């Protein structure tokens, strides 16, 4: 059976994929690299998308896996990085309060990976606990505890 043509839906999904990736990566460049990897993998593995699956959820799962792969690979490399100037946040000053936006993005970057994923999926992407847990490949109880801890940490950081 030929793989379904995902391309039109995938193109429509790009803004959300970029947002999700931005929440995980914290800067536009790495986030777009992540989206690019995701798109390549999604098209390559289109045949694995079951007819009853939502493309968004399936693709978010690919983003998550690619991000985790990248974090692992990067962990091996980071030791040698020239000390990163952390002015990496690229925000569009025309939108809202720049300082507020940066503060929230910065706070999110301080969360451990799994909490950041939970917060991004539920609070930013607006997925249900069940959908988010499925993407993170954990039980709903695990998702809720990560979400609760992530929230608590953000409240601390942002008040």
């Amino acid at each position, binding site marked *: 059976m030929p793989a379904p043509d995902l391309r039109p839906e995938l193109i429509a999904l*790009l803004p959300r994929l970029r947002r999700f990736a931005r929440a995980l990566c914290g800067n536009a*460049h790495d986030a777009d690299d992540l989206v690019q990897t995701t798109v390549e993998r999604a098209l390559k593995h289109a045949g694995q998308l079951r007819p009853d699956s939502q493309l968004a959820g399936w693709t978010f799962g690919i983003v998550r896996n690619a991000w985790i792969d990248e974090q692992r690979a990067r962990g091996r490399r980071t030791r040698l990085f020239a000390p990163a100037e952390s002015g990496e946040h690229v925000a569009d000053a025309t939108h809202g309060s720049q300082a507020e936006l940066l503060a929230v993005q910065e706070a999110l970057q301080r969360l451990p990976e799994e909490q950041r994923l939970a917060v991004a999926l539920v609070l930013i992407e607006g997925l249900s606990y069940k959908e988010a847990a499925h993407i993170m490949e954990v039980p709903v109880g695990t998702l809720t505890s990560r979400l609760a801890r992530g929230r608590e940490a953000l*409240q601390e950081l942002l008040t």
Partner: protein
Amino acid sequence: MNFDDETLMAYADGELDGTARAAVEAAMAADAALAERVARHHELRRRLQAAFEPVLTEPVPQRLLAGARGAGSAGNVIALKARAAPHWSWPQWGAIAASLVIGVLSGALLLRRGEGGPIVAVNGQMLAGGVLASALSNQLASAQPSDAVVQIGVSFRTRDGAYCRTFVLQDGQALAGLACHERGSWQLQVLAQSEPGRGGAYRPAGSSLPPAVARTLDTLIAGEPLDAAAEAAARTRNWSRGQ
């Protein structure tokens, strides 16, 4: 009635069923502190959404649109090994470059042959030249000026002992690549377009590796990257494999 924070969180996220939801709402009506805790959950969600909402209205980069159309990344990535058979003569190489490389590398960069240019084609191999060769041979990632034209990222050894380094070259546009030291020169293994640093600020080289370069690194690397001491020692030995 007392509710734990996870229940209040689930309420704020719209995850409670009718009965549980009604219980929380009744309690909130009677308990301002409880209502305040729920309000904090709502407020956090609002702030997070506001912080990332602008991404949705940014123009989507062309490379992502092209990727989603199935054009792949071949448009801005050159796998040099696959392209450059060792016996190709310059005219053949030039033809390949003209068909595959121009537009990505702004042409002139690559086609500047011989001395001077940062990338030179010799006998069908792409080699680092000029500032790039100099940086690859001399610059230490642990001590490089943040405004250097070439930023060195990671240095490492391959399974057969050759030294390789990743770099980002600013030459009109930002090019990221990986070169390995072979027979006295730096042979390019992969070269890909990288986004330039914003506002004139160069990015740390390692953090902006395009996926194709990162993949090549992961394919070639044996063990861990060199630390600062090993990097300096390799430079002292002129990047030769040693015994």
